[in-house]
């Protein structure tokens, strides 16, 4: 029984459709349990006062990357069948900057805004409404931005492809960067805790 199940026909279209809300529910649950439904916590990431976002997201990325690599290596998952989004350098850089600005202003990103809205926070409801309005306007005006949207294409590339190294080497490097990031985050949080204790005493 090899994955991805949707591509190899193991679960069929109905199974794929039913698995989506289950995965979405689990995603939202763990985001909420990690405290990422709080805009204050998320904004803390940008001021380096709370690194929960970095730790949660990089933990998820690392787990998924190592899991996907090793499942592929032992033949349980065919990574060639997993959709790899195409890279468009300039539009995605601009989109990333806009996303970051919106993240900082709202204190929420798309996933966490849904979690916040579901938890009854009004700011979450506001961000979700704004996000849907933005999607609607973008689609209405797509013809105006289509040229930029499709500019500077690189195709479906990975970091390992770009660096010209085997995929496993890319995985090893990202793992090392993530672990170094966790260590630095722990040190920063330690200093913050010490500072707050100092101020409190």
């Amino acid at each position: 029984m090899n994955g991805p199940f949707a591509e190899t026909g193991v679960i069929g279209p109905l199974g794929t459709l039913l698995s989506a809300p289950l995965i979405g529910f689990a995603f939202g649950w763990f985001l909420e349990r990690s405290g990422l439904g709080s805009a204050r916590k998320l904004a803390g990431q940008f001021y380096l006062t709370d690194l929960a976002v970095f730790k949660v997201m990089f933990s998820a990325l690392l787990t998924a990357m190592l899991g996907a690599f090793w499942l592929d290596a032992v033949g349980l998952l065919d990574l060639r069948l997993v959709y790899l989004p195409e890279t468009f350098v300039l539009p995605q850089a601009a989109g990333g900057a806009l996303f970051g600005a919106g993240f900082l202003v709202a204190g929420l990103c798309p996933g966490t805004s849904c979690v916040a809205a579901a938890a009854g926070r009004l700011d979450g409801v506001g961000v979700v409404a704004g996000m849907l309005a933005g999607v609607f306007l973008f689609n209405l005006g797509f013809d105006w931005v289509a040229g930029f949207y499709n500019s500077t294409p690189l195709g479906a590339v990975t970091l390992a492809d770009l660096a010209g190294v085997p995929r496993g080497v890319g995985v090893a490097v990202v793992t090392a960067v993530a672990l170094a990031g966790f260590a630095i985050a722990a040190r920063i949080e330690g200093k913050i805790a010490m500072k707050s204790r100092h101020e409190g005493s």
Partner: protein
Amino acid sequence: MTRVHQALAILAAVLGLAAGAADGRSTVDVSQLGSEIDAERDHVEAPELAERIMRQDPTLRVIDLRTHAEFDAFHIPTATLATLDELTRATFPPDASIVLYSEGGTHSAQAWMLLRLRGHRDVRFLREGIYEWLSRVMEPRLAVDATAAERADFARAEAQSRFFGGLPRSSVPRAEVPTGYWTDELGAGELASRAPAASAQQAVARIRRRGC
């Protein structure tokens, strides 16, 4: 940092470093491919393939690389049809033992290289394609002036041929005995001329007429 965090970090470090090492090992060594070809470990002989189909080897995957029409006309039992393009995306179980065949040997050799480069280790092909299967399994023939080695080979071929609904024939004129690399091995390579493609087409036509 709690002990759980430390343990998870160590696990991630081990898996990450092992990923780098594992991928390095799985890189195809071109000189290894060359030595496999030189040692003729890249192909399987038709009788060996027949024997594996007869004992229902669960790991065996037989791939026919010919056209749809040729496949419909005749194919090796258990074979599935695929194009070279489809093979670039096809998935096989990790323990799959893949055998490829085409009209001759060119397409199968290309497909062999393609699958080996994709990391599949157990891949072989029929060196003379469907012609070899027809000549050695479906319609083996024994010449009237057969050598001792040819007679021994025919005894084996006769049993396999009957299993697959073939038509073994003995005491035929030497000129009607199909030839290939295997007849060189049996010491009869100089005794008849070769026309593999035409012979294969005639054999398929005969099998179709018999309704097999």
